[in-house]
């Protein structure tokens, strides 16, 4: 409910609401942009350009319900980064034929994907290795699902897919991860299940 009015207030030209929106979403957007571009400066500029555009075009933007704000911004940021990358290549390179390809080929970095909260260094490395073997799109979908906690429909919308394709993409990725994780990691992960003790109890 508070978010909802935040978006409405921003559309009405309220600078404070705009600031609140920016601060509320910055961390998540920055994380997503850094992973997409593997370039902190490009990530910063992308978000900057996105918010400048949002402000100038606010009169033409539509109402959004609170839960739709973040997915909307993720999707818009994805477009913004692609545009920025395209403009960048146009400025710095003569090979305009490759432009479209380059802009589409985001490098989705698996580094720091996992933290050592529960995993040992070795297990973490093995999981990272398994994740690194996924395609960029597969990794992006997994990240949107399990880190940003988006539903299949939202992921489809952000990545420009239909919902069934988003599901399939995550299905394939999970299959690959299952196949590529060594048995040692599996045993350990299953041990965590026992510790968690959901139904096993103490």
């Amino acid at each position, binding site marked *: 409910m508070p978010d909802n009015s935040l978006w409405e207030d921003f559309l009405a030209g309220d600078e404070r609401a705009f600031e609140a929106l920016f*601060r509320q979403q910055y961390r998540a957007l920055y994380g997503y942009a850094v992973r997409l571009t593997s370039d902190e400066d490009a990530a910063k500029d992308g978000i900057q350009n996105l918010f400048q555009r949002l402000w100038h075009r606010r009169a033409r933007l539509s109402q959004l319900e609170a839960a739709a704000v973040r997915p909307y911004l993720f999707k818009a940021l994805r477009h913004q980064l692609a545009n920025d990358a395209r403009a960048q290549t146009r400025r710095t390179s003569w090979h305009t034929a490759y432009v479209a390809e380059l802009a589409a080929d985001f490098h989705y970095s698996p580094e720091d994907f996992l*933290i050592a909260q529960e995993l040992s260094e070795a297990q973490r490395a093995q999981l990272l290795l398994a994740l690194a073997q996924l395609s960029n799109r597969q990794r992006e979908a997994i990240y949107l699902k399990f880190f940003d906690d988006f539903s299949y429909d939202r992921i489809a919308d952000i990545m420009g897919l239909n919902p069934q394709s988003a599901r399939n993409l995550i299905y394939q990725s999970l299959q690959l991860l299952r196949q590529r994780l060594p048995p040692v990691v599996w045993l350990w992960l299953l041990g965590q299940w026992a510790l968690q003790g959901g139904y096993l109890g*103490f």
Partner: protein
Amino acid sequence: MEFTRYSVNDFLLDESFQAYVADGDSAAGLGWQAWLREHPAKQAEAAQAYALVRALYQAQRPALPPGLEDAEFQRLQQAIRPALAPPRLRSQRRLRVLASTLTTMVLLMALGLAWWQWQRPAAMPSATVRYTSGAGQQRTVTLPDGSVVVLNANSTLTAAARWTATSPREVWLTGEGYFRVTHLAPRPVADIAAAPAPVKFVVHAADLSIAVLGTQFDVNSRAGATKVVLTSGKVAVERQTLLTREHLLMQPGDLVETSVAQPHLSRRAVPSALYSAWTRGFFEFHQTPVRDIMQLLRDTYGLRVSVADSAILRQRVSGAVAVTKAELLLPALAEILDLQVTRTGNTVRFEQAR
């Protein structure tokens, strides 16, 4: 339910199952726990799916460089507010320099003050309600949000007199309490730090802040030491002193501790059920190593425990002991283990019975 035909893949892809892994105490989590208890045949497949999803939920955002958000917001403000600068006379410019110097000074002072405020542990609200339990007495308190706190003997819980829907839920504890916090988040939140204030529940004990969304845990803050034991779900523990800030995300079965002697947060795995046994009035041991029980005597009763023979540590105990007071627990343990237990003041010694 059609889940009886679920394969590992179906569990993996099911969004309510994912919500269960993210938070066992969410509505989906409780539903799945109950369902799995009734369908033991599906547990092996569910366990595989659970393990993988859990590992994936460990994903973390790349660190946000400090100050970046502020700097970027300023850049944004400058970009969207084009300066409408009319030509100025020299004297006006000098005045402006003076004004901006003054503004900078005031700003710096305000920043210093804000920093100082921010560094202090959260202040208690002006109007509070206080719940106290006397010696040898336990007390159950239900808070306005439906969360339940069981206070152990000689403990005090303080909370704001009025709870609103927009303020974070905060309580202050001295002594020991077992918390069952009601979950208010509409959907699983992976990142407690980033969760909106109203869905958070924060317990302040000594210099620790314990932030949760909805889960069960024990907090014991006595005699210069504070311990947190997590039964289920997720807990973010933060230790804050004048200049330092430590942060730790607990997992079920973790005990996190800070004391005057060892102020840095330390973490170890414990059988969490033993640490909440006092709320139920009895201990239940399932092949529990004596080592764990001795650790418990140190952690919750502040006893110094020693053994004559390290073989004793490896002995295992099964069965229930219908007491939780140390005076009664020690003879009961002696009988089960067939050991001789001698207590001198705060020191307890376990020896082979002759």
